C-alpha cells in the first residue's frame, strides 16, 4: 500500500489559535466599516466607461474560517454593460455566487468580507430636498389659456379621509403624478456609487429596488408563513414612498400578470407551498421586477427546475429583459443556458476570472485551456462523441492556493512560464480577454524568469 499522506487540512493547536485571533481582529475591523455613519461623498464614484451599469474592479472577497483564509473572490474585474446579459460560468466553489452576493453585500457575515476593490454601480436615487425627503413630481393640466397649471386635489390623511381646515372646508394640495403602474412618481437623479464602500444602511435603498436577485431555490427564498401577495406588496411598500396597501396590491397583481400567472388575484392569497417549482420561480421574478430594477442577478435560476419548465422561465426572462430593459447577471454552470441567454460571458476558476468575451467569442474561439476543457467535457444532444474528454484532477484547496497559475496542475498546455506568478487578464481583442501565459508571451517570459 502507498504511504498515507498527511492531510493538508491538518493544523496544529497553536496555529489554530493564532488564526482565530487574527481572523477575529480582521473581521471586527471590516464589520465596523460597514456600520459606520459616513456621508454620501465617501462612496460616490465615477464610471470608467459610461456605457457600463456595473464595473467590478480588483474585487477581493475573503472568508475568514477557522481553517484559514479562503480567498473566494481573488482580484475579479469585469463590466456589465447597461441592458445586456452577462453570463458568469464556472464550477461550484469558483466564487461566482460570492461575486454576485458582494454586489448586494449579502455575503455571510462576519466570516465573509469584501476586503478590497470596488464595485461601481450606476444607481437611480430619489432627489431629496433639504430635509431629506424625496421630491414628488406634480401633475399639470392645461388651463383655460392652454398653459399648464398644477392640478389640485383634496388633502387626505392616511385613512383616505379629507383633511379639513379650522373652518370646516376641505384643504387642497397639488396632485402628485401617478405612473401607469399606479405608483406615485418622484424626481430621480442618476448617481454612481461604490458598493464596496457603502454602509449597509445606504445600500438597503438599492437592494430590492435597483438591484434585485432571483435565487436558485425558490422554495427556500420565499417566506412560508406569509402569502405571496403580502411578500410582493412588501417590496413596493418599502421602496416607493407614499404607496398604500391597496396600490401596492394592484401593482403586485400587475407584476404577476407580467410573469404569466393565469389567475394573479388567486395567487396573491396563496402560500408558497401551494405553488409548484416553476410557479414559485415566476413569483420570485415578479418580486424582482416590482420596482423596475436596473440589474437583475439571476443566481442559477433554473438549476432546480425541469427542462420543460426551464425553457418556460428562460423565455420569460428574455421577454422581460426586452420589456423592462434591465441588465441581467446570469450565474450558471450550464453552458447551454449561457449560449442561449447571454451577450457576454465571464469564465471563472478558483476565484479568478480566466476569460471574458462576447458569447460568440467564448463559444467559437475560446482561448483559455480551462474554457476549452469545460466545453469539451460537456455533452450536448445530437453531438456525437466517442469518449468524453475530462479535465483531470481537481480545483486546488482554497485555503492553500498555489502561488503560480491556479490551473497549471490540471492544464495540458502548461509550460515553463506557468510556474511564475499567476497570469494577469490581458486583452486579445476589444471585448475578449484571457488570463493565460500562452497568449501573453511577453509577460510570460518575464514571469518565468521571476
Amino acid at each position, binding site marked *: *500500500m502507498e504511504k498515507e499522506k498527511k492531510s493538508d487540512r491538518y493544523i496544529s493547536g497553536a496555529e489554530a489559535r493564532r488564526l482565530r485571533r487574527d481572523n477575529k481582529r480582521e473581521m471586527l475591523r471590516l464589520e465596523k466599516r460597514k456600520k459606520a455613519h459616513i456621508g454620501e461623498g465617501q462612496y460616490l464614484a465615477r464610471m470608467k466607461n459610461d456605457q457600463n451599469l456595473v464595473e467590478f474592479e480588483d474585487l477581493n472577497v475573503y472568508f475568514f474560517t477557522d481553517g484559514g483564509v479562503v480567498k473566494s473572490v481573488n482580484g475579479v474585474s469585469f463590466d456589465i454593460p447597461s441592458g445586456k446579459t452577462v453570463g458568469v460560468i464556472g464550477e461550484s466553489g469558483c466564487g461566482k455566487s460570492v461575486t454576485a452576493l458582494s454586489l448586494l453585500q449579502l455575503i455571510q457575515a462576519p466570516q465573509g468580507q469584501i476586503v478590497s476593490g470596488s464595485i461601481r454601480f450606476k444607481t437611480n436615487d430619489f432627489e431629496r430636498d433639504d430635509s431629506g425627503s424625496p421630491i414628488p413630481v406634480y401633475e399639470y393640466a392645461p388651463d383655460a389659456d392652454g398653459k399648464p397649471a398644477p392640478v389640485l386635489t383634496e388633502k387626505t390623511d392616511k385613512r383616505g379621509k379629507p383633511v379639513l381646515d379650522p373652518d370646516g372646508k376641505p384643504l387642497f394640495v397639488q396632485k402628485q403624478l401617478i405612473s401607469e403602474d399606479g405608483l406615485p412618481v418622484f424626481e430621480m437623479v442618476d448617481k454612481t456609487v461604490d458598493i464596496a464602500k457603502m454602509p449597509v444602511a445606504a445600500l438597503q435603498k438599492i437592494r430590492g429596488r435597483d438591484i434585485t436577485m432571483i435565487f436558485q431555490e425558490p422554495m427556500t427564498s420565499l417566506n412560508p408563513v406569509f402569502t405571496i401577495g403580502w411578500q410582493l406588496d412588501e417590496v413596493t411598500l418599502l421602496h416607493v414612498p407614499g404607496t398604500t396597501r391597496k396600490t401596492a396590491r394592484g401593482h403586485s397583481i400587475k407584476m404577476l400578470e407580467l410573469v404569466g400567472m393565469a389567475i394573479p388575484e388567486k395567487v396573491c392569497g396563496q402560500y408558497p407551498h401551494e405553488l409548484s417549482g416553476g*410557479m414559485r420561480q415566476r413569483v420570485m421574478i415578479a418580486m424582482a421586477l416590482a420596482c423596475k430594477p436596473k440589474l437583475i442577478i439571476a443566481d442559477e435560476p433554473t438549476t432546480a427546475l425541469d427542462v*420543460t419548465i426551464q425553457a*418556460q422561465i428562460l423565455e420569460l426572462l428574455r421577454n422581460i429583459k426586452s420589456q423592462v430593459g434591465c441588465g441581467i447577471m446570469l450565474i450558471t*454552470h450550464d453552458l447551454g443556458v449561457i449560449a*442561449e441567454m447571454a451577450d457576454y460571458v465571464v469564465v471563472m476558476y478558483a476565484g479568478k476570472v480566466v476569460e471574458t468575451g462576447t458569447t460568440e467569442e467564448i*463559444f467559437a474561439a475560446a482561448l483559455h485551456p480551462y474554457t476549452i476543457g469545460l466545453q469539451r467535457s460537456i455533452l450536448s*444532444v445530437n453531438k456525437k462523441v466517442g469518449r468524453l474528454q*475530462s479535465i483531470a484532477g481537481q480545483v486546488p484547496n482554497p485555503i492553500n492556493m498555489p502561488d503560480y497559475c491556479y490551473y497549471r496542475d490540471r492544464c495540458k498546455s502548461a509550460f515553463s512560464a506557468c510556474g511564475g506568478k499567476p497570469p494577469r487578464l490581458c486583452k486579445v481583442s476589444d471585448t475578449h480577454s484571457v488570463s493565460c501565459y500562452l497568449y501573453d508571451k511577453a509577460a510570460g517570459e518575464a514571469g518565468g524568469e521571476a
Partner: protein
Amino acid sequence: MKDVRESSVITDYKPDPENILEVRNLKKYFTVQASFFGKPLAFLKAVDDVSLTVGRGKTMGIVGESGCGKTTMGRTVLRLYDVTDGEIYFDGRNISREKRARLRDIRKDMQIIFQDPYSSLSPRLPISEIIAEGVRIHKIVPKNEIKDYVIGVMKKCGLPSHYYSRYPFEFSGGQRQRICIARALAVQPRFVVCDEPVSALDVSIQAQIINLLKDLQRDLNLTYLFISHDLSVVEHISDTIGVMYLGSLVESGDKSGIFGNPMHPYTQALFSAVPIPDPKTKMKRIILAGDIPSPVNPPSGCKFHTRCPHCTDICKDVAPKFSECEPGHHVACHLYTGCRP
C-alpha cells in the same frame, strides 16, 4: 392491498434469454390516504403499467422530469420497493413476488448507484468498510483476501490505495461517487441501476464519472439501467432509451430512433427544451404550458393531454396503447395509432 395480490395470476410467460431484465406491466402505487382501519383510500400512482426489456451488456436510459416515477421504477425493479402489480424477470427468473430472504442472493447480481453521494455513504465507516461490507456478506472472496480485493476494486474505480482507511467526509463529490461505484461493483453484479449518478456533480467531474462507468461496462460486461433527467448524458451512454411521463412510459426505442425521430409530442417538447451550448443554433422551441399534473389525480385518457399541443377529443377520454410504430420503437400516442399493424 389484498385485491392486487388476487389479480396477479401466475403466467407461464417465458422471457427471452437474450434479455437480462424484462419488466411486464409493472405497477407501484403508494397509499397517500388511508381510512381509520388502514384501508387505502387514495393512491399515488408512481409507476403505472411500465413494460421494458434490457439486453445483456446494454444500457437502457430512462429520462423524464422530476416526479415522473423514474427513481421509483428503478428501485422497484431491484425490489427495494414491493411490487403492486406486474412481473419482473431478472435473468429468466420472476422476482416480483420473491420473499425477502431469497432476494439476498439476487441482490448480489443487481446493485444501485444513488444520486446523492453525500447522503448515501455512512459517515461512520471508513471507505474500506463501506466497500467490504457487501463482499463479506456475500462471501465473494475468502476472509483473508478481502483487503487485497477491496484495494483492487478501489483501483479499478480510480481511487488510490492509500485512501483505504479514510472516511467519506474527507472526499469531494466526484471521489464519493467513485466510492459509491466501487461499493456497487465490489459484489460483482451483472446489472446496475444508476439513479442519476452524475446530476449532483460539476460538469468537469461528470465527464470523469461517465467515462469511468463506460470503461467498467466494457471491462466487466455490465448492464446498466441509467436513470437521468439530463438528456445529453442519457444520449451519450445509452443503447436504448425510455421516456417517462407521470408514471408511464410514453416512448421507448433505440437511441438513434428516439433522438433522430422523436414521435411522442412530449418527447419532442422535452428534446427541444434542452439548451444547446452553441449561440449560433437557434432552436425551434416547443414550450409546454403548465406543470406536470399530480400523480394522485392523473388526468383522464392520455395523461399528457393537459399540456399537449396536438390534443384531440379522443385523447381526453381514451388512454392510448403503448404500441410498436416502427420496428423497436414504441409510442403511446393516438397520433400514431393509425400506423399500427
